[in-house]
């Protein structure tokens, strides 16, 4: 169990990680939209979804472990 003083830092670290994942997803989606050609568009979108889901799982488990 983390001391209460460390908890905000841990939460901030996970927030930053999530923000990074989200930025990466947004970038991939923008690229997908710019390409616009199937099936490349859908593959790029699927890649963004994959990044989002892996990031979500990692963040969820980290929040659970650190209780933040």
């Amino acid at each position, binding site marked *: 169990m983390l001391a209460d003083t460390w908890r905000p830092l841990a939460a901030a670290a996970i927030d930053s990680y999530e923000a990074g994942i989200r930025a990466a997803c947004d970038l991939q989606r923008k690229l997908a939209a710019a390409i616009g050609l199937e099936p490349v*568009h859908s593959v790029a979108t*699927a890649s963004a979804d994959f990044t*989002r889901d892996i990031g*979500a*799982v990692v963040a969820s488990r980290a929040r*659970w472990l650190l*209780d933040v």
Partner: protein
Amino acid sequence: MAARRLRTASGVATPDAFTSLRWESAGSGPPLLLIMGLGLSGGAWWRSVPTLAKRFRVITYDNRGTGGSTALTYAYTTEAMADDAVAVLDSAGAEGVHVYGMSLGGMVAQQLALRHPNRVHRLVLGATQPGGRRARVAEPEVMAFFQRRSELPSDESAWASVPYNYSSGARGRHGARIAEDIARRLAHPFDEQAYRAQLCASALHNCYGRLTRIEQPTLVVHGTADRVIPFENAEMMAERIPDARLRLLRDCGHLYPTEFPRVDEAIGDFLEASGV
């Protein structure tokens, strides 16, 4: 009850070439998105839609792998399901909406409010939980049933879930209503893989630490006899969400709209109070 499902518009959201999410809307007024829970299609809102559609443009949709929605991959996280909800809103031409989610749908609604706050005006969280290690989980017997449920034939599984989804009082008093629910549920296809993916999404859901960031006025509704998601979760969420109020329904089970249909009027009152 011979409630007719109002239907005024329908469409398909296609977030990518392999995914199609079927939605319907009924009524007119401020838009209200309803998000259904584990393994159920948007049609499972049939009891609530006629009441809410008198005051709102009610949008229901089928989550990936349920009802008429299909996808190459299923949604394994509530984050993904929230993004699907946004694709539905875009397709339905609804920018900002009220959101009412039940059970797993309530978890998706939390993510929607956190990931896309500009799209959500007011929030109703029904029979749901925040996730994280502090969430109260169901008894082991209940958990075991839902984990093996997808292995049972559809009709057997639907009837076997009755002692978990409805309170003992409802089973005694409202047998006909429960039979109606199950008949409706069996009318929609049930995809085992989608069910398992949604179970995974529910298990991974974790918004506990971020509930304090939900800025929207929120109504938390829960039955005190809910065996699937204990009502202490509702108390926890109402305490953590800054602008939340709690409505506990005494002796009601998980699928409380069947046991206490008047709750939809109260939910409509809460949503309408915003004047959006």
